[in-house]
């Protein structure tokens, strides 16, 4: 390992140890480095700015205690990304998320009425219109690059279920985006 990477690894480990022991400064450092990634993952999975903000707060409030479970394998960012996905999943199961169902239904109607161009607004609307269990699999598989085995582990579903949901998500997106 090059010396610079070695130093970076030691620095990160020290920062994680300090955060785990309750250092607010170390936690602030981790927030500065990783909050954008956590926020982006949460936003893409929920398609809700408010929920994404809540999840960022939940993740970093719980991070110091959760670090006890971090083994160091596979890199901290990848581990934190997985924790974020799990936290988002828990969040989406909560009652606040259910209250948003009506909003998603409106988005679905709006999405179906339009001949979509593949611009960001259309994508965002179409994704928001996907049922959350399909959107999770689509995002994790096609965007985040997880395997179906990984997704099965994250969501507590079988590998085959993940494959079926991805197929259904793509088909639903196709319908929402006007490909008949």
């Amino acid at each position, binding site marked *: 390992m090059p010396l610079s990477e070695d130093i970076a690894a030691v620095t990160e480990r020290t920062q994680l140890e300090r955060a785990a022991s309750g250092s607010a400064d170390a936690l602030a450092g981790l927030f500065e480095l990783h909050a954008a990634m956590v926020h982006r993952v949460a936003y893409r999975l929920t398609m809700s700015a408010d929920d994404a903000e809540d999840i960022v707060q939940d993740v970093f409030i719980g991070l110091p205690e959760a670090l006890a*479970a971090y083994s160091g394998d596979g890199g901290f960012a990848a581990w934190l990304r997985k924790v974020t996905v799990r936290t988002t999943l828990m969040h989406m199961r909560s009652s606040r998320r259910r209250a948003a169902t009506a909003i998603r239904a409106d988005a679905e109607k709006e999405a179906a009425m339009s001949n979509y161009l593949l611009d960001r607004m259309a994508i965002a609307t179409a994704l928001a219109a996907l049922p959350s269990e399909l959107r999770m699999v689509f995002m994790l598989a096609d965007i985040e690059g997880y395997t179906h085995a990984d997704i099965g582990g994250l969501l507590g579903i079988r590998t085959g279920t993940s494959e079926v949901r991805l197929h259904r998500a793509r088909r639903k997106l196709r319908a929402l985006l006007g490909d008949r």
Partner: protein
Amino acid sequence: MTHRLDDEAVTRELRDAVAGLEPPALAPDTFARIAARRANGERFVLATVDAPASMSSRRLNLVAGTLAALAAMVIIGVALNLRRDSAITSVASRDQFAISAADSACASSPETRDPSMLRHLMIGAFGVSVACGAQPIPDAPITVAPSQILSGTFTYRGLTITDAVFTSVHAPTTISISRVSWHGASALLAVRVGPLITRVSVDSLTVSATDLAPLHWASWYPTQHPVGAMHADFDSSMVTIVMTGRFDTVATFSYPRKAGELPFGWTQELVVPALPLTNGWHGTLQIALPIHPHAYKLLGKPWESMALRVVGRERITVAAGTFDCWKVQVGEPEDQSLMWVDASTHVVIRSQTTYRFGDTSFEDQVDLQRMILITQ
């Protein structure tokens, strides 16, 4: 333009477009709010292991059955007025257990699914399982007067359990009550030490000296390996439970307290001495259970109702002396649960309960052995 998402190129196009989808900027004070919430003691238990793979319906039924049995044990524990620290569940991974158990518990309750809160609760309460569904909390009809509670040390003869075959007598339990200041407010601290079945019980409760609102609860498990401890901090809307020992975890959940709710598990020590007992007095106590308000389907409700009625006046003699007492019936007459409360000090002098299970019955009785009052 037509998009065929099964086509590799279109999927790649879509992926690129989504990958460029950025959320609105985080609020600039996001970390300041995180730091403030942590400084305020708030914690969030993150899932650090994957969820278990989905189970067959037979296995789900098995889990549901296990949960029902666990819940029944909890309910029986509450009914027998056991202290609420005895349900310790050994699991390979508490997160896996909690997630799967919470999901299973909620599976049959479509109106309310909140496994994240359940998970906190299940971890926080050593696997004490509860589920979804909500009921309104009734108005509490009784006003208490904590100023009546005397400071001092009260030693009770240990629990005596008698049935047709045997009698078991436990060593004494000591309860100390002090008037203290808790974050600047006037409070009462009650500490209870003694044997409980096969272990040592050491626990304490700090309550408001104004209305008996719970402020802090702590319990230690010196006979557990590793030695464990659990404490809970209450405020007007939240409770935070911290555990060390067998499980190290923190759980914070919403716990909006309703005025008039009384602390659970401390009826004899803190509630009865504050009651306006007099000839013919009766009322129903609402004893608060610190569980998440969305999570009491199996327990039924977040409070325990306890009907009390003064049924007479008797002079009784125990090791601590002879006392002129109100005789108080607890629950319904068929429950055969009674307390004798000194009319002048409101100290519980004797409590006695007879349990009947079919043809078997047993009786437990606790008497005051010694009382040292602190005059302030």
